[in-house]
């Protein structure tokens, strides 16, 4: 099976789990599994991550989450760019430091989603309030806590299932 396809399938699977968590009524502090899986593949096999699939998944999230078309795609592309640009540095840091990095990326992503693209708030360019910052922080914490699990699970999957030689 092609490596890109396998990566695509893991991303699709994480999207499904994310939507199940929404369906089951988890709060906004729930982890964003798709982001974590994307980060992992950008660290592990950066050359095999497809930008087109990221855009498609971003559009799917936009449809599912009700955001403007392109908002998630731009966010996911930005995360991909950061990890593609610095993956040599990020690979070598410890898992604890990676957790902190995931926390910062998740928090930034969540705050970016609070941007007022349509100008409904009038005077301000953002809709963020203290409650949103609190839920965003909890979301980032849950992401960073679950990161080691995702990291080792996907690494195990990659080593057992993906036979790829550079």
């Amino acid at each position, binding site marked *: 099976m092609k490596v890109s396809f396998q990566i695509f399938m893991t991303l699709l699977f994480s999207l*499904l789990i994310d*939507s*199940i968590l*929404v*369906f089951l*009524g988890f709060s*906004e502090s729930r982890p964003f599994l798709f982001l974590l899986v994307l980060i992992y593949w950008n660290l592990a096999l*950066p*050359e095999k*991550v497809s*930008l087109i699939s*990221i*855009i498609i998944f*971003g*559009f799917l999230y*936009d*449809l*599912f*989450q*009700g*955001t*403007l*078309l*392109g*908002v998630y*795609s*731009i966010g996911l*592309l930005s995360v*991909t*760019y950061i990890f*593609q*640009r610095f*993956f040599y540095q990020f690979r070598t840091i410890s898992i604890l430091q990676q957790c902190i990095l995931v926390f910062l990326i998740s928090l930034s992503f969540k705050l970016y*989603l*609070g941007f*007022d*693209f*349509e100008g*409904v*708030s009038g005077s301000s360019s953002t*809709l963020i*309030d203290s*409650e*949103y910052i609190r*839920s965003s922080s909890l979301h980032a914490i849950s992401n960073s806590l679950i990161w080691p699990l995702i990291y080792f699970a996907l690494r195990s999957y990659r080593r057992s299932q993906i036979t790829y*030689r*550079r």
Partner: protein
Amino acid sequence: MSSEEHKVSKISSDAIFAIKPIGPLSFIASFFFCFVVLFLDIRFHFIDAYRGQAQDFINPIFSIINLPKVALDKVILRYKDKTTLIAELEEKNQEIYLLNITNTQISEIQKVNEELGLLWQKALTGNKDYFLAKKIQISGTSFRPILVIEYDKGTPVNLDSAVISKHGVAGRISSIGRINAEVLLAQDPRSFIPVKTRITRNQAIVQGGGLDRKGALINIKKTASFTEGEEILTSGLAGVFPPGYSVGTISKITDSPDSEFLDIEIIFSSTPSTIDFFLVNQRINKGEIE
């Protein structure tokens, strides 16, 4: 290993396993494409027409997810003992008895209203203009909460139809699919509902502040008289929401010196996260009500 699979040093002929990430040009092109799509959606809202249809594709997945729970419930029901079933039956009988009392009271009120010829009787007799819709889920971010409702196939649904819960106005339909529709909730910051206060009859507009957040009455001059705790009802202006439905209650009024308007906070009466069924109004169209 052939040299096509990896780079080879021209000096030493050794394999170079350096990984070449995605090039910046690809990123620039991708970002440009996404920004164009985003701009077009902000400008023309072209995707709104397809959101409801996208829900038609997504929601069968949730039905599959729900299957184990349904199966488990059926198994539990199958092995319930007789005593429990009798107790439940008695409980249901009690509920039916209470409902009968309520129905009798409602019938009496209806008779009185018919005699008085009150306006709301008209709405009551026009109950064919409402249909029942079931909540599928609430998704989205705090500032763009999306309520997805399901209705029977073939039910005529209009855009901007008012969605009403047992507590009051829940929102309006923003996108229609085959059997699913997306509802722009009253709590959404993009939602503006023309309202009037119950006692003082002041007209105003309520804007949402986000899910589980307070709304606000906007552009209220400081000379206006509003009181805390007063109920806010739909005024029927703009013809989207039928008049007289509860929207919320004024919770706080602040007169800040650096603002030319009053800051009036609203607690919405309808909390869609705790409600499973909604009524959708088909009768009211834009311009129908002054």
